[in-house]
């Protein structure tokens, strides 16, 4: 009964769908090591650039036949044309990189990513784009392939399992986000409370600080800090938190400002409560705690966005560690080839988790507005 009542309020669908995605994400981040068949840094040289498939899944789908197949191929097989495929993508990467990114940046970039760009394959006057336009005859997989691996989402050019890389990426995306929340809310809420409760000089000062922060584009400020100190996700998250402080403090300030002349605040003052207690308990916890959760959810979404984007720009999580942005950066040219799964699944993971947090915050916001209107 209560559930039906809840589902009828505005924003409930967004809350449920966003919450489900976040619970799934948290599950993978916490229990990821028990779920995966492979380690995220384990290079499986037998299965390089394998398309997504799984013997486990197959045995469920094809029952008896699948089980027979499994039994028949328990001895490890050497993968078919694994080498050819590997070289073709490497060549594709290197060729395009030389073509379009030939400058000092590309050199330092390849040294950072530590990718193997050694390549002995000769082009023999082939058209450079033949890999992209014509499907290579050699790479055609024979019709009857017996699968003996559990790479649900396929493997990349080093034979690493995409699925376990995604699970490892969930951890590296969520932890810094919590840090950004801590900075943004830990500074923004006290500033907003003080500005709204005392008003006057305090409000002026806080407004000046806010406008100073707002006059820098977020990424430019982050890049300055990275340039000055060193590329590190946690510095990035501190700066991100600081750039969110104006929004949070302004929101809290306007809400507290309207509340601070109300009867319950005056009553609390008369009964001898200290200003700190009034602000922390009555103005923040009793009146504004929903704002706290809404903002925390939105900040998590923004932090995933910033973390993946910066990892893509090579200033966030560095290659031995895995982040979703990192995977896409490392094999970004797979978007133009038949090896879609290397970049497709990380992109989906990024989009789903960002939308999950956005929807949760949005739904909570709609619910809050609805309850306050009543």
């Amino acid at each position, binding site marked *: 009964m209560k559930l039906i009542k809840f589902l009828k309020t505005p924003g409930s669908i967004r809350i449920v769908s966003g919450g489900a995605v976040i619970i799934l994400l948290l599950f993978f981040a916490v229990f990821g090591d028990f779920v995966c068949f492979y380690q995220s840094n384990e290079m499986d040289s037998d299965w390089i650039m394998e398309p997504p498939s799984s013997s486990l899944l197959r045995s469920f789908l094809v029952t008896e036949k699948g089980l027979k197949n499994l039994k028949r191929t328990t001895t490890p097989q050497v993968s078919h044309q694994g080498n050819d495929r590997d070289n073709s993508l490497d060549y594709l990467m290197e060729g*395009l990189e030389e*073509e*379009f*990114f030939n400058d*000092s*940046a590309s050199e*330092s*970039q390849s040294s950072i990513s530590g990718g193997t760009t050694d390549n002995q394959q000769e082009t023999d006057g082939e058209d450079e*784009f033949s890999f*992209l*336009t014509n499907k290579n005859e050699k790479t055609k997989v024979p019709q009857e392939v017996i699968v003996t691996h559990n790479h649900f989402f396929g493997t990349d050019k080093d034979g690493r399992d995409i699925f376990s890389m995604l699970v490892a990426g969930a951890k590296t995306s969520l932890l810094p986000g919590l840090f950004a929340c801590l900075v943004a809310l830990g500074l923004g809420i006290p500033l907003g409370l003080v500005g709204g409760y005392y008003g006057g000089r305090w409000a002026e000062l806080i407004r*000046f600080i806010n*406008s*100073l922060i*707002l*006059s*820098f*584009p*977020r*990424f*430019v*400020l982050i*890049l*300055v*800090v*990275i*340039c*000055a*100190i060193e590329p590190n996700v946690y510095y990035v998250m501190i700066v991100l938190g600081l750039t969110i402080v104006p929004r949070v403090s302004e929101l809290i300030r306007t809400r507290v400002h309207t509340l601070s002349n109300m009867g319950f605040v005056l009553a609390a003052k008369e009964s001898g409560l200290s200003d700190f207690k009034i602000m922390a308990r009555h103005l923040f916890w009793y009146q504004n705690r929903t704002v706290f959760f809404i903002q925390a959810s939105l900040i998590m*979404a923004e932090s995933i*966005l910033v973390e*993946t*984007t910066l990892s*893509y*720009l*090579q*200033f966030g999580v560095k290659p031995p560690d895995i982040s979703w*942005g990192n995977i*896409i950066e490392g094999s*970004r040219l797979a*978007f*133009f080839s038949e090896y879609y799964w290397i*970049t497709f699944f990380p*992109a989906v993971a*990024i*989009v789903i988790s*960002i*939308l999950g947090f*956005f929807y949760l915050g949005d739904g909570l916001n709609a619910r809050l507005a609805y309850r306050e209107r009543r």
Partner: protein
Amino acid sequence: MKQKQILRVLAKKTGQLILSIIAASLLVFLIVQLTPGNMAEIHSLAPATIEKLNLDKPIWLQYIYWLGNCLTLNFGVSLTDGTPVNELLLQYAGTTFGLTIGSMFLSLLISVPIAILLGISAESKSGKVISSIIYSISSIPVFVVGYIVLGIVFGVFKFYPLVMPEGEFEFWPWVTYYILPIFVLAIGNGTLGEFVRVLMLEIRHTSHALYIKAARSRGTSLLKHYIRPVIIPFLSIVVSRFAVLISGVIVVERIFNRRGLGWLTWEATLNRDFFVIMAVTLLTALLIRVLMFAQEMLAYSLDPRLRKG
């Protein structure tokens, strides 16, 4: 009387503008001073260069020299190859300018008609679905949108839209080379969703107002009554989105391999080229402050309530 008041507000706002720009420059300078070691050690500069760049002076003097030089449009030299920074800025500014203005224009072009349609029509399920779809699409990170769009273009037209088209004019290569980054920046980055949302809510909010009801019952044109209350909050959103757009430019220029200010910033960060990044940051902060100032003055002249007190 009125003139005097306007002048007083103008003077006050200009004072705030100058003060905040000085504060911004101080902030940038202090962040760069946080670097472990110093610039001369990192780039192993020659003593003559150190003297020329005033790096041997105490910090407060360095700041004054730097700010003074910036006022005369001398932003120092690139520490990697010694090119003056203003030459670099001039060389790269065109691309970025085109990208920023173009994508802002395009996202306004897409979002304004949709928002007006959604705002005027009654609240309905389909309207909600449309606005949430737009909001979801625009909250996808720019680099994901960029690669998806590039992949689709490659799949359909069989060419790689990152190469500058040369020689004979062919429609698709030329159009995709110049339009795609603008399109990606306009779609992604959250700008589109934010515009639709804010404008829709403002229009809906305004149409509940009593003066609209009165105008409707008088039978006069409604447009005039809608424009002022809607355009003031919308302009402030447009100005605040410029900052976000500049963030997006860094990513888009990297995806599409364009040499613009975003690329310059990226490369400067990689090479720890302090003077370049200080100049870029200071100039973007200046640009955004000036835009905010213009928006505030415009709101002041449009909204009589602000003028009163």
